[in-house]
């Protein structure tokens, strides 16, 4: 592991979608999420985190220290059990493990911290986003909640988006019985013709130093993952999605130099005057008001 990060960061990501559905709303039949009052499109934090995890998993292929805890198709407890094994517990029976852990706790009061550190060292997403590891708690060990240094908000579109319903047909019929009566099946997909979304994030150097050991290399990987999060994630539903801007604010200190909202307010994204219906990235102007940003804060446009 490299050096733990020493600076607080804030970042703004701008990404857009063309003829696709960036994040379906289970409450609305998988139509794109839209705030009903403002008409602005939404993409949840967990959706973006999933993309980042997937990218890291694909690129690192489970290299030591870069495993992913919340995977598709692997039970969580199995990863927990790996932590137990590292402490010399190799029981497979649930009850025996619990007893072994209790015994361990009596003989080694720092056992839970060791387990926590083991998890942080091995799993990139725990180092980054944290995890709730209450699966240990039943065994009187409290690895509890690891708060990761990286915090993401919801992404919101700059302007109201419309969701367009596209009806499609397919010639292959699923069941024999239907095939007797009809020759095509109708399907539906919802798309956003165009939307530019903005999401804001935070990196706390203190949590990295005290808890998870999130390092400079991890941070580089995080930026890489954010820039490429849609590149390995193409699908029929998502259309064309791309990250257009990643603006990183690097504070000179661990605690930061100025309030986050001032930095975010300095990034202004707006439609060009003469554009009525934005349909491409060039319909927007991105302005960074450097005069409102303290000199000690370093601004980097990563793309």
């Amino acid at each position, binding site marked *: 592991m490299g050096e733990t990060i020493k600076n607080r960061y804030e970042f703004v990501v701008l990404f857009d979608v063309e003829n696709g559905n960036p994040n379906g*709303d*289970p*409450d609305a039949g998988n139509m794109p*999420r839209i*705030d*009903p*009052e403002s008409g602005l499109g*939404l993409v*949840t*934090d*967990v959706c973006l985190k999933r993309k980042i995890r997937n990218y890291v998993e694909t690129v690192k292929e489970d290299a030591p220290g870069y495993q992913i805890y*919340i*995977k*598709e*198709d*692997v*039970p*969580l*407890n*199995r990863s927990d*059990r790996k932590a137990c094994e590292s402490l010399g517990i190799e029981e*497979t*029976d*649930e009850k025996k493990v619990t007893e072994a852990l209790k015994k361990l706790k009596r003989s080694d009061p720092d056992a839970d911290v060791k387990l926590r550190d083991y998890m942080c060292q091995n799993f990139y997403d725990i180092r980054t986003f944290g995890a*709730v590891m*209450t*699966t240990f708690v039943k065994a009187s060990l409290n690895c509890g909640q690891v*708060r990761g*240094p990286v*915090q*993401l*908000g*919801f992404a*919101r579109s700059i302007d109201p988006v419309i969701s367009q319903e596209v009806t499609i047909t397919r010639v292959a019929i699923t069941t024999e019985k239907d095939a007797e009566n009809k020759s095509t099946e109708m399907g539906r997909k919802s798309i956003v013709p165009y939307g530019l979304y903005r999401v*804001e994030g*935070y990196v*706390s150097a*203190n*949590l990295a130093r005290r808890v998870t050991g999130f390092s400079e290399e991890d941070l580089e990987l995080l930026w890489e993952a954010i820039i490429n999060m849609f590149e390995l994630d193409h699908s029929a539903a998502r259309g064309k999605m791309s990250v257009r801007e990643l603006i990183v604010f690097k504070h000179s*200190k661990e*605690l*930061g*130099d*100025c*309030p*986050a*909202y*001032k930095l975010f307010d300095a990034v202004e994204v707006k439609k060009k005057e003469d554009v009525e219906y934005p349909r491409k990235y060039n319909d927007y102007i991105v302005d960074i008001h450097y005069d409102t940003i303290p000199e000690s804060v370093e601004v980097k446009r990563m793309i």
Partner: protein
Amino acid sequence: MGVGVKVKVWGDYALFSRPEMKVERCSYDVMTPSAARGILEAIYWHPGMRWVIDKIHVVNPIQFTSVRRNEVKSKILASSVLQAYNGSDKPLYISSKADIVQRASLILRDVEYVIEAHFEMTDRANASDNPGKFKDIIMRRLKRGECFHMPYFGCREFPAHFCLCGDEEIRTAYDTVEEKDLGFMLYDMDYSDLNHIEPMFFRAVMKRGILDLTDCEVVR
């Protein structure tokens, strides 16, 4: 009475989960004292001090919206894990579908509060610590926007922007509402016995937009 501060906090969304609705999370109408304490601790905390929330001013009107997300239910049947473990040669997988649930959250939109709080010294303070020192650090952090980690409204995906509140008089959306009874709300968790952490509740009555916690009766 210790040293008091007034902190203005605001954000796009907030979710202060009601304990009785934890699966499909549903937010309280206003911030709980426990969430307010968490916000202040994110800005500054030290074992030698303890934050006490005095008042919460509800500046913006209470508005809800709903979000449904795919979430992980992190506990899996021990038996299926056993199977996965005992079969060392054959990779036994659990489909992620079994591990994922869709849960709705009823969350607050466009919130703004002013937290009035003070801190008290605890016996874990070092010899060199004194209220004046803590106060200076806190004021400096509030003015510069420094924080240990970004505070949040109930959940980490709802960041809370904060600044020192310099207004003498705080206007709220409920200035004209004499009394709004919000029912029983979580006051905070009682951590005095770490093996049995107990919740404490209080009867929340918002008077002219202010939740006064200075002498509320705590029910366990």
